[in-house]
């Protein structure tokens, strides 16, 4: 196992972005080639990490730990475990597919450069094991996404871009204060020199209960905006609707996961007691998100906005899984994060393709597309069914695990959430019916079917939807040790944590404490 792989996965797209930005030539072809190469190489690197991943190891793998700013105890500490592995792979795969499927309408050079910066930043967020490094990546991904929405979006793109930037920045501003307070209180309590290292702090957490709760809330503010949770979700429909297709795909597929992943890694792992204390709040907000997102999605006239609201509902499920604190529900939540990336990413691509052909996303102006574009309709059906959670496709596995796990510890929330599954079927099937069924009239009748490159980009997503639905084991067995480890950690740290017996890890399960020192890689630091 070479730790350098993870560093490379961050460095390759970043270097690619620089090359794209400085390669001369006004035409976009060379930029597109470089961007495709860089993101595809990153994809290959992430997949090779997936194959190289040690399934018996619950700790962090591919670890690099190098001092960056010594007088503040900040180090370049990156590594992945079963929780972040799949999000890294998802980021690695979704970007090249997006580049294949979608060509920008204008200014290709900066467009591809920003996309690659976004890829590097997103992988960095999932890999960071140092609070400072995490914050840097968490903030830095805002800039390319802001530029993509504002520069290549539709309609009120500037409004949407600025709203997106400011909403997210309010959250992370509070988180920065939280990080600094945590680090300084921890250093005072332990007497050790100051450190930003996630593992060091989490494994020897000395901050008082009250302070930890406040600090957790400051972190939660940042993640809640990113997810987005119910009252702070209003940036999402605007951002999604006005963003260019690639922006929507990446926003839904990767960037929303920054919030949910943050809740797992920097909520549950770092503040087990505070997360447990506030769990009812987040369970409630998650369930509200499921019902609210579904209800509002049903009412939408714009197809893209509909998918955007469906994201809020799906992310609500993930939050439910995270704050139910059982192995099953957490596995389901992580599984669902990947599912949502695949299926919503594919849905946004399809909506983008329809828009590109018909120049409208209004459901009322579409109809009968099944006749003019049968292949597209078929692909849409599979993706939509995955999103609904049809057994045999990937969405079912995730939702089932979440509901199963949550039923033990968060019973009534799970019961209400289950209703959301039905609502998802309602709004998606109804939308499908209005867009694809019926008589095709006017331009709808002559709409072109999928092009080769578009099909090529969608094919891997379809394959994953089916494969993970039928055979989720390779994924579950890779995340299981890490998830069990996390639940064991919560059990150790939270005195009144009392999960139902049959959902706790087996008795002979011994928690692995990730070591911090001595793992310094020979790989090049950033």
């Amino acid at each position, binding site marked *: 196992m070479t730790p350098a792989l993870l560093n490379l996965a961050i460095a390759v797209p970043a270097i690619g972005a620089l090359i794209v930005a400085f390669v001369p030539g006004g035409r976009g072809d060379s930029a597109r080639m470089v961007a495709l190469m860089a993101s595809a190489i990153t994809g290959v690197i992430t997949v090779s990490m997936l194959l190289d991943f040690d399934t018996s190891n619950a700790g962090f793998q591919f670890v690099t730990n190098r001092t960056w700013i*010594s*007088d503040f105890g900040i180090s370049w500490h990156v590594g992945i475990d079963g929780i972040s592995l799949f999000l890294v792979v998802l980021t690695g795969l979704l970007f090249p597919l997006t580049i294949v499927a979608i060509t920008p309408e204008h200014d290709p050079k900066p467009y591809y450069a920003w996309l690659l910066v976004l890829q590097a930043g997103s992988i960095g967020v999932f890999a960071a094991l140092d609070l400072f490094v995490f914050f840097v990546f968490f*903030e830095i991904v805002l800039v390319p996404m802001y530029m993509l929405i504002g*520069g290549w979006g539709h309609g009120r793109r500037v409004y949407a871009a600025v709203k997106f930037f*400011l909403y997210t*920045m309010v959250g992370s*501003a509070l988180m920065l*204060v939280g990080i*600094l307070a945590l680090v300084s209180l921890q250093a005072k309590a332990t007497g050790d020199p100051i450190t930003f290292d996630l593992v060091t702090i989490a494994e020897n957490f000395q901050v008082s209960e009250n302070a930890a709760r406040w600090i957790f809330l400051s972190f939660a503010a940042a993640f809640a905006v990113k997810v987005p949770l119910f009252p702070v979700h209003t940036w999402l429909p605007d951002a999604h609707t006005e963003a260019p297709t690639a922006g929507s795909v990446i926003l839904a597929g990767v960037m929303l996961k920054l919030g949910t992943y943050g809740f797992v890694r920097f909520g549950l792992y770092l503040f087990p007691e505070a997360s447990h204390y506030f769990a009812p709040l987040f369970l409630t907000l998650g369930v509200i998100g499921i019902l609210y997102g579904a209800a509002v999605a049903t009412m939408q006239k714009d197809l893209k906005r509909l998918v955007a609201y469906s994201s809020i509902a799906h992310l609500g499920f993930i939050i439910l899984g995270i704050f139910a604190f059982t192995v099953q529900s957490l596995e389901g939540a992580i599984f669902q994060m990947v599912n949502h990336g695949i299926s919503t990413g594919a849905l946004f691509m399809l909506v983008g393709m329809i828009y590109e052909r018909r120049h409208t996303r209004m459901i009322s102006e579409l109809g009968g597309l099944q006749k003019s574009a049968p292949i597209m309709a078929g692909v849409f059906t599979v993706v939509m069914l995955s999103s609904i959670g049809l057994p045999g496709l990937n969405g079912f596995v995730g939702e089932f695990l979440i509901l199963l796990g949550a039923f033990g510890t968060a019973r009534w929330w799970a019961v209400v959430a289950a209703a959301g599954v039905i609502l998802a079927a309602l709004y998606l099937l109804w939308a499908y019916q209005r867009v694809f069924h019926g008589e095709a009239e006017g331009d709808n009748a002559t709409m072109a079917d999928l092009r080769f490159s578009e099909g090529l980009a969608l094919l891997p997503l379809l394959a994953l939807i089916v494969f993970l639905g039928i055979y989720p084991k390779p994924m579950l067995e890779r995340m299981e040790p890490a998830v069990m480890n996390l639940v064991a950690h919560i059990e150790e740290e939270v005195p009144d944590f009392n999960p139902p017996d049959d959902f706790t890890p087996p008795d002979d399960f011994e928690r692995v404490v990730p070591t911090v020192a001595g793992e310094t890689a020979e790989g090049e630091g950033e």
Partner: protein
Amino acid sequence: MNNLLHLSQSVLAQNEAIPQLPTPEIAWSAFIPLLILAVGGLLLLTFTSLMPAFAKSSWALTGYTVAVAIGTIVACIPLWNRVQRVCEAGEVCQAGAFSTAAGAWGVDGFSIFLTILMAASVALAALVMHDYLETEGLTGPEPYVLLMLSASGGVIMASANDLIVVFIGLEILSIAVYVLAGMHLLRLASQEAAVKYLVLGAFASAFFLYGISMVYGATGSTSLIDIQGFLATNVLTSNGTLLAGIAMLLIGFGFKIAAVPFHAWTPDVYQGAPSPVVAYMASGVKVAGFAGLMRVFLLAFTDYAADDWRPVMLVLAIATMAVGAVLAIVQTDVKRTLAYSSISHAGFIMVGVHAASDVGVSAALFYLAAYTFIVAGSFGVITLVGRKGDNLHALSDYHGLSRRRPMLAVVFTIFLLAQAGVPLTSGFFAKFYVIRAAVEGESYVLAIAAMITAVIGAFLYLRIIVAMFMSDPLDDHGEIDANLSDEEAAAARIELRDKVTAAEGPPIRIPTLAAVSIGLALLVTVAVGFLPGLVSGFANDALPQLVAAGS
């Protein structure tokens, strides 16, 4: 003759009534950086009046000024090494901070760090000024002379261990800048700015002087060393005079650093003054103001920190950050927007000063260092976009800049993101360190207020970025009617293009020296964004110290 001398000496020896004036011992090595700057400026003035030919070559003038600035920085190196040195056991050596001229002049890491910053801001401003003066027909040595003299005033403020010396520095700094602000003879706004700055500045100086006299009345000295010693060993039964004095000093400094509510001059003066001068005002003058503020408040009034001036500083810091950021949003003039944003930055630096701890001081120093380069670069770009006449500063003049001058737009974007505190720029670490200082001091309210204003601030920088990248100048001039036939539409498009070209004004030139200045500022901003240790190490070693003379 010999006899006479002998006689007078014996008379002197006998007659105790004739006082002997003690002349303080002066370590000249401590003054070398100041002398290079001040004498460099005066020499240029003398030299150019004797040899007018030299004064006509703007290259020679700029080169000379930059050389003086670099010389100042180089002269600081041995001093810094001496201050940071630690003598080994038993070794007799010169090491550590010291003061000279009867304790009126302190040499410590703090003064040297800020001297270097002042010199750097002189160099950056001079490089931008070169082409500006030529285009505007203002060639002559005076701006350069004033720049160097003003900076020498700042150096005096950074090193002064005596309130009177601080005041002298303040006046040398200010008077030169009053003239610089009004140097553009053809622009009415420039004249107005100078008068406004002069009147309000003189008013603030009066406050400052009054403050000095009150502190003197309360403590019996103007020396920071004596004041600190007096306050450490005596408890004042009635401290009204002292508190009034401290408040007046704070007003005086508050004016120079443009803290709310003493900020009202800033937007008008920044808008009116020539852009390269604003680059210096926003960086150098602010550095000098903070140098004096920190020296006086953190050294002399330490015993009055916790209960007396820190709460005031807290309120001022929050007000400064918030008012600066909020008012910046409603501006339509980029220069004015950045004037308000510089007010907001002053608030952030005050967060570090408010902490009144070692961490806080080095955070404030880091902020000053990062900010100097960011703001000098930003106003450098503004100078170029302002073009001949220095008037094109409206937000609409930035529309479509990404098409006309993509590199300039990208560079400006990096400066703006740095001001917003986006990671991987020096501006991020600057905010990071001051917030950390606030959190360490458990001033959570201040930390959260600072971060909220940072978000508000981000909005205003985004507005400018939107103008450069996302606003097509074509949109400003109406759309082409969709119902036109192809030929008509093509004609309409050409007409529209002409209209836009006319509205865009003359093309934006990027002169070499200005590009060097902006490039240097960019390099520092990005490099420090990746490796903050380049500056933070020095900032940590640059704590102000009071050392009595001769010890």
